[in-house]
């Protein structure tokens, strides 16, 4: 297949001219209009292609970001799971509980730990 009739191949449009003498000025106008339209169509197709390409690029980047974020969420929740296991294993053996320990939580951050940790939930 030959490359782009999108370019300056207007030879097709040069069809046989009309018989009457006023033909030429009409012809000129016709040719001018055809040419204008050709350029407009070319521009429009170019815009469509660019829009699609840019959308595809953005899409690809969003998918990558999405995968990375899911990985991070997985990593963090597994770390949290690990910590809770460590804690539960330690609890029966714990020797560190005394009145002084409560200072750990209440001391400098008095009241802070009673705050709700609210995780926003969007209804589906």
């Amino acid at each position, binding site marked *: *297949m*030959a*490359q*782009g*009739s*999108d370019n300056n*191949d207007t030879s*097709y449009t040069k069809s046989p001219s009309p018989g009457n003498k006023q033909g030429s000025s009409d012809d000129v106008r016709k040719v001018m209009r055809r040419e204008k339209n050709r350029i407009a169509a070319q521009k429009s197709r170019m815009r469509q*292609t660019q829009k*699609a*390409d840019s*959308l*595809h*690029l*953005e*899409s*690809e980047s*969003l*998918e990558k*970001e*999405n*995968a990375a*974020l*899911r990985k*991070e*969420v*997985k990593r*963090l*929740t*597994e*770390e*949290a*799971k690990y*910590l*809770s296991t*460590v*804690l*539960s294993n*330690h*609890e029966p053996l*714990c020797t*560190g*509980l005394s009145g*002084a*320990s*409560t200072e*750990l*939580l209440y001391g400098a951050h008095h009241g802070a*730990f*009673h*705050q*709700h*940790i*609210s*995780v*926003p*939930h*969007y*209804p*589906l």
Partner: protein
Amino acid sequence: MFLFSILIDFLRLSPSGHPSRDTPSPIDPDTIQVPVRYEPDPADLALSSVPGQEIFDPRKRKFSAEELKPQPMIKKARKVFIPEDLKDDRYWARRRKNNIAAKRSRDARRLKENQIAIRAGFLEKENAALRQEVADLRKELGRCKNVLAKYEARHGPL
């Protein structure tokens, strides 16, 4: 979060009512992890769905890197002028076939672009929700590890 309530119980302090999270903790990061509210314009959805098939669902339909490649530049054949007397039935039959195929191709392309656009919109929302989730998790882990560190400083490692 469950971790923090365990920590509080463990240190025998009065638990404050933490809302426990509903989302399960899957091993597979591809399982849907964050609830996202996404309501695409129903007109857009209609433009992205084939009437004979299921309505397009941006949550499930991922577009592979292959599908997202930039538009291949199809080399269009030069228009060859054909005189009227050569335009026989066979010619017109072929023209009609090609016109139908061209329309089918344009429609398919338009549909695909619409689907990609909706999926992109959904992903933006989902990523924002995921980012929030990561921030919350980090914050919570940070607090717990901080408390644990203080405990360990006093009583040695667990």
